[in-house]
């Protein structure tokens, strides 16, 4: 916090954060847990964002039951928000029995929720999204990704293609659903970035972040993973052969399937309540 007590809000650039430093050494703040405790960028809904990150962290097993969180002041400094915002988020998490606060010399906030409980909470959050919101993000991703593959096939260099083919080859059902989902999203983003367009890439990054709850929860069957992995290998070949239009058709079909799958997953989650 600065002298006026107003928290510094770091500027969000893509997936990284740029934070002003006032220390003469230009030293970044102490960071403990990677993205979960990386600075919160948006001005709106900062409390929600902190709650979401901690719940996602528990659901992924990065934050474990019994683990102690940094102090309110430490968290505020790391996240680039006011202590009051952190206090609000911790209060919400306490209310939902995700953590407990112990007083005294060995006091602090400790994680109490199991990964399964955190997943249940993510499901609850997911049901608050409307199908229209999911479809709309999906529509944007279709537009961005189909345009991007055409450009990728035109502008990609040979070394990019070698890398792309290797990354596609690494995508396999052996990864398990969660890791597969992450790897697929990363590969997708890598392909969009081959367009050499920072704006298209940023649009895909933003759309993926908005979908992060759905993507974190969705479970893929083994056959589905194999099929998608095989598809991406074909796509990597199409792009490497500079067949932009064929790559575009592939992407259009793939995204239509993915969006339908996400909508159906949302529909079932809402129905199950």
């Amino acid at each position, binding site marked *: 916090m600065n002298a006026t007590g107003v928290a510094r809000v770091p500027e969000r*650039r*893509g997936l*990284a954060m*740029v934070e002003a*430093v006032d220390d003469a*050494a230009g030293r970044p703040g102490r960071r403990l847990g990677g993205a979960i405790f990386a600075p919160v960028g948006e001005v709106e809904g900062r409390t929600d964002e902190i709650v979401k990150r901690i719940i996602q962290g528990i659901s992924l097993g990065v934050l474990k039951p019994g683990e102690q969180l940094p102090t309110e002041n430490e968290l505020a400094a790391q996240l680039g928000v006011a202590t009051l915002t952190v206090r609000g988020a911790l209060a919400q998490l306490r209310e939902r029995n995700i953590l407990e606060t112990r007083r005294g010399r060995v006091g602090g906030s400790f994680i109490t929720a199991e990964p399964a409980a955190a997943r249940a909470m993510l499901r609850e959050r997911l049901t608050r999204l409307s199908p229209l919101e999911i479809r709309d993000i999906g529509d944007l991703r279709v537009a961005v990704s189909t345009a991007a593959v055409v450009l990728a096939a035109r502008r990609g260099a040979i070394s990019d293609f070698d890398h792309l083919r290797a990354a596609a080859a690494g995508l396999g059902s052996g990864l398990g659903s969660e890791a597969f989902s992450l790897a697929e*999203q990363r590969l997708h983003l890598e392909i969009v*970035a081959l367009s*050499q367009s920072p704006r298209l890439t940023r649009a895909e990054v933003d759309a993926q972040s908005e979908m992060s709850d759905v993507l974190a929860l969705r479970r893929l069957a083994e056959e589905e993973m194999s099929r998608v992995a095989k598809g991406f290998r074909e796509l990597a070949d199409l792009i490497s052969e500079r067949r932009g239009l064929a790559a575009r058709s592939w992407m259009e079909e793939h995204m239509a399937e993915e969006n339908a799958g996400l909508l159906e997953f949302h529909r079932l989650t809402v129905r199950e309540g």
Partner: protein
Amino acid sequence: MESPPSVALLTEQIGAVSIEVGQCAQRLSGLLADPESIPELLAAWSRETLERWPDLLLGAGAAIEDSSRCRLHWWQLGGNGLDVLLVDVDPGSMGYYDFTRSKWYKGPYQSHTSHLTGPYVDYLGTDRYVATMTAPILVGDDFHGVAGVDFDLSKFERRFLAASRGAAGHLALTNGEGRVIASDARGLTCGELLDDGELVSVVPTGTDEAWMLWELAD
């Protein structure tokens, strides 16, 4: 065609930046025994370097290995001085940036020489269109990380267009793979691949990759 003097002046600056980056890496290798001193020295170096070439560079810093970990110390010059770049180091996150697998890190690691990466969309780091120059931090034959700078390619394009203004023909500067870094030719912008042209000169960048200056038919 000879390369116009103003363009030559611009390309010579790339060599000067490379010398600076190499010297920084060398200084860092002498400081590895005293890791506490590194952030302060690096921040000062980044500020000086960014202020020396404000119309070419976007960021500067280093990635240093310390036992099994690798830390990124990277800064950009903002309105109020240095801004630190924080990247996502959580492997379970979508934005996870394992920069030790990126070309700008692996290049110097494999070759033990300075390396030039890009142009590329740096969506995991600065979120800008950049080229990154990195030099290995070596102690004898042991690799301990890299020091480097990001070229801001929008700035670079503006400099190039100003420099090539008096040239007789149309020019394009590309990386070793033919990706355009800057060009004043019709329909050819930064990021495209050049398919035809006459080589004017090879630009020594002080790294394992030379950039090339081409003359294009109208």
